[in-house]
């Protein structure tokens, strides 16, 4: 445990980037931030004028970079926090953060093993931190990313993921509507997708699966059925949408 890791710190919103019509990346400057590993989370605490406060946990979207912390928030209609963070919260505004949290669902740049990342919707966020951490470290670990979204408009980090990158293969699966040049029929992710876009089990890759419960359950079961060692399949299920 890093000393003071769990102290609440004040972060200031430095910039915003809209990823989709309903998802926004928030780049925060957090003086005293102790750094983090790709895959970890941060707790964000909001306090109202009358002292009422509430906390949500968000995956961090980018590797450690000084005192910068990036999160991507999906707006949940009627949510208590996400509409505020994606529509009202403006550069210069302050919020409290504490972290980093989590030491299991992490990728360490020193690892040379092949990596399979499987994302369902907003589950891309911690996996994107791993993709970016690999790039930042100049790692040669071979990466494959399988990213399931409803429609092309739902892709986060679209420009970045569509730029070719040596040693990173990106495959999209569309569950409701694909782009015009996509050869497949829209479908839920299944054995064929994971088998085709992933690594053979005998390569013993590290597998990271993140997304809604049903999605993660399905993909993890497929990986085990394809012969992957369950101990090398790390999962993170989004419980109730941390609105």
């Amino acid at each position, binding site marked *: *445990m890093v000393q003071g*890791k*769990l102290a*609440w710190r*004040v972060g200031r919103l430095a910039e915003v980037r809209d990823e989709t019509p309903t998802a926004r990346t928030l780049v925060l400057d957090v003086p005293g931030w102790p750094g983090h590993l790709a895959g970890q989370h941060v707790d964000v*605490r*909001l*306090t*109202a*004028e009358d*002292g*009422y*406060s*509430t*906390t*949500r*946990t968000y995956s961090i979207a980018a590797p450690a970079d000084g005192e910068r912390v990036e999160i991507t928030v999906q707006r949940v209609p009627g949510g*208590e926090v996400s509409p*505020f963070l994606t529509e*009202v*919260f403006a550069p210069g*505004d*302050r*919020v*409290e953060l504490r972290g980093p*949290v*989590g*030491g*299991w*669902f992490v990728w360490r740049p020193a690892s040379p093993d092949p990596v399979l990342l499987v994302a369902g919707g907003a589950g891309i966020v911690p996996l994107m931190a791993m993709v970016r951490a690999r790039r930042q470290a100049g790692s040669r670990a071979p990466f494959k990313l399988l990213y399931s979204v409803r429609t092309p408009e739902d892709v986060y980090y679209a420009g970045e993921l569509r730029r070719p990158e040596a040693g990173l293969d990106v495959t999209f699966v569309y569950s409701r509507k694909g782009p015009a040049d996509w050869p497949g029929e829209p479908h839920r992710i299944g054995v064929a997708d994971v088998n085709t876009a992933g690594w053979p089990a005998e390569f013993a890759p590290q597998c990271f699966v993140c997304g809604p*419960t049903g999605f993660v*359950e399905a993909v*993890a*079961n497929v*990986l*085990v059925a394809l012969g992957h060692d*369950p*101990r090398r*399949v*790390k*999962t993170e*299920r989004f*419980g*109730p949408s*941390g609105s």
Partner: protein
Amino acid sequence: MGIVTPGFQGRARSADEKLPPGQYLVEDFPVLSAGPTPRVRLENWRFTVTTETGQKHEWTWADLKALPSETPTVDIHCVTRWSKFGTSWRGVSLDTLLADVDTAADYVMAESHGGYTTNLPLEDLLDGQAWIAYEFEGEDLPAEHGGPARLLVPHLYFWKSAKWVKGLRLMLDDDLGFWEAAGYHSYGDPWREQRYQGD
């Protein structure tokens, strides 16, 4: 009190005394686990209590189902901030299972299929506070919620209620389980908001 974030209003304030600090209420039952869901065949299922001297007490599935069961209805609190009220279970009280176990241990490591572990003080498993649960809301406990049987210790954060439990190892000294070694609190009392080490 933290710093005020201008413009943030939040929801109607709930003064629900049943909700621990920092939690919010859900109606569904989210699934959270660190890896794939293990599938355990009942004919191979065993529950083993191992004492600090290495003495083993073992129950098959039939043995467990033959023991007197209880039907606790409890509130559960996950460290990821959801709470669910009035969940009903069927299982065997740890008081029943540990009745004939001779031990001087103060601590327990719960061990699960799939390799998960979590540590608890033994006293938190006794006096009607914990069960080996095999039914949820009148149905067999589904695998994704820890079936065929899970530990149920509702007065602690729910990661202590080990899914797919296969045994308890009694220990003279405390040790850290899976999440505890990763920085989560060793005890995990929701009412004292003991989420992480040092809380």
